[in-house]
């Protein structure tokens, strides 16, 4: 597995993914934080000056955008590389257990996400001064918790995109993935409203909807949970467990898919 992991790291390096991640992430984080810090907002004659506390919250969301982009690119294009077309035949006969492949891709994607998170951290220092790290308002706890939670969710997303890429092709996956994220967000919002209904019962349409929705990956709850964590609050273990279960399910499906490479979609689209 170590050799396979190193080989994947070499692919990430040689494809210039690391350089692109560093450039993209630095540009987005620095410009975003610089723009937000000391920004003056005037709404209905109420003037608010955004300080470091607000900049941190915004930084979390900027970081989420870059991390989502990195996981998507890795999932759609990089993870399926060895399993597409005729190359999949060479990968298939490698004397290594198929289980190691999703684990290696997860580790590689995790490394890229860590680079992104380190850049966020450095950007806070560059924009607000490095002494900011030791100040009382710097939220070390929520930063670490948010990054860990987000990494787990993005690992599920990355592997789902990689699996979809092998089944329906890369271009279809981009549109299918974007549509699914959008639909799941809407369903998540509905689910929140439905479950708060005082007349809520499992044996109604709304009840059935919530019951099914709660078994799916909690993509619709992701922003709610992310927001809670970024504020220093905690998220339900139920959602965390669900993400973990879905990671295991997607890993299993990925292994099943690469087990018979002759059925894998070879062409683009």
């Amino acid at each position, binding site marked *: 597995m170590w050799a396979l992991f190193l080989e994947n790291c070499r692919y990430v390096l040689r494809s210039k993914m690391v350089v692109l991640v560093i450039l993209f992430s630095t540009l987005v984080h620095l410009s975003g934080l610089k723009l937000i810090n000391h920004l003056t907002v005037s709404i209905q004659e109420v003037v608010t000056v955004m300080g470091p506390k607000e900049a941190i919250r915004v930084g979390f969301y900027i970081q989420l955008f870059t991390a989502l982009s990195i996981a998507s690119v890795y999932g759609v294009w990089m993870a399926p590389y060895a399993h597409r077309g005729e190359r999949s*035949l060479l990968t298939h006969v*490698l*004397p290594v257990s198929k289980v190691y492949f999703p684990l290696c891709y997860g580790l590689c994607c995790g490394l890229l996400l860590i680079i992104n998170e380190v850049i966020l951290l450095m950007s806070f220092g560059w924009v607000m001064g490095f002494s900011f790290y030791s100040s009382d308002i710097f939220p070390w706890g929520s930063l670490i918790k948010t990054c860990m939670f987000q990494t787990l969710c993005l690992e599920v997303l990355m592997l789902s995109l990689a699996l979809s890429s092998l089944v329906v092709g890369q271009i279809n996956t981009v549109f299918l993935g974007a549509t699914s994220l959008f639909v799941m967000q809407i369903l998540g919002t509905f689910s929140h409203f439905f479950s708060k209904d005082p007349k809520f019962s499992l044996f109604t349409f709304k009840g059935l909807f919530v019951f099914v929705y709660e078994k799916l990956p909690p993509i619709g709850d992701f922003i709610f949970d992310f927001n809670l964590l970024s504020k220093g609050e905690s998220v339900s273990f139920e959602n965390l467990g669900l993400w973990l279960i879905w990671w295991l399910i997607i890993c299993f499906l990925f292994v099943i898919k690469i*087990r*018979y490479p002759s*059925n894998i979609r070879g062409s683009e689209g």
Partner: protein
Amino acid sequence: MNQSLTDTVLKLTNVSAYYGFTKAIESVSFELKKGQVVGLIGANGAGKTTSLKVLLGMLKPATGTISILGMSRCSSRLFKRIGFAPEDATPPEYLTAREYLVFLSKFRKGENINSVQQIEEFLTWFELDPDKLVRKYSKGMRRRLILAQAFLGKPDLIVLDEPLNGLDPMMILKLRDRLKLYQKQGTTILYSSHILTELEQTCSDAVIMHRGSVIHQDSVENLVKQFGSVEKAFSAKIGAA
């Protein structure tokens, strides 16, 4: 123990496989013994590549049984003992030839094989530029690299799918010599091709496939004795089928 049974390296019995709802091969049965070089002959679409994919576990057989090197299923342990050169595959393009062979040698280390020495020997023998990225290789060089990786680690069974595609005449002659050398050392080789003259010179046995089924299996010597050449034997058998 029965000697003929212990010598069986590969055995397919009544194997059928589908691509979706399309039947690709039907009741395919053949057997390879240790040290045999068997040519899998057939026209385009006869089921040669599908048979190879099924026996290497890349396609699930609908019916039948497959036994390779005494094991019933393709596993990572089994792949340590098999070398495979697919027809059109491209090795990872971000690697050089040396890096690719070094990567594979980490998994396929055979007993008493000095992988570093073997890699350098292969790079010279297959006339590969060791430090050039595969991305910059010509089609012929990529083909030679695919063949080199199949021979790496001294496997017990080598499966070659249309190995001559894209090779120059000198390399074809060299490959023929290498196959004969490996056969003498007891390696079993399954060789799928539609270049029948080459098969006649390289293989000890031939399996003729037509429309997804095996229609004849015999030694090359017998086919030549009976029909004059493998080419004529193939025409006669296809005509009769």
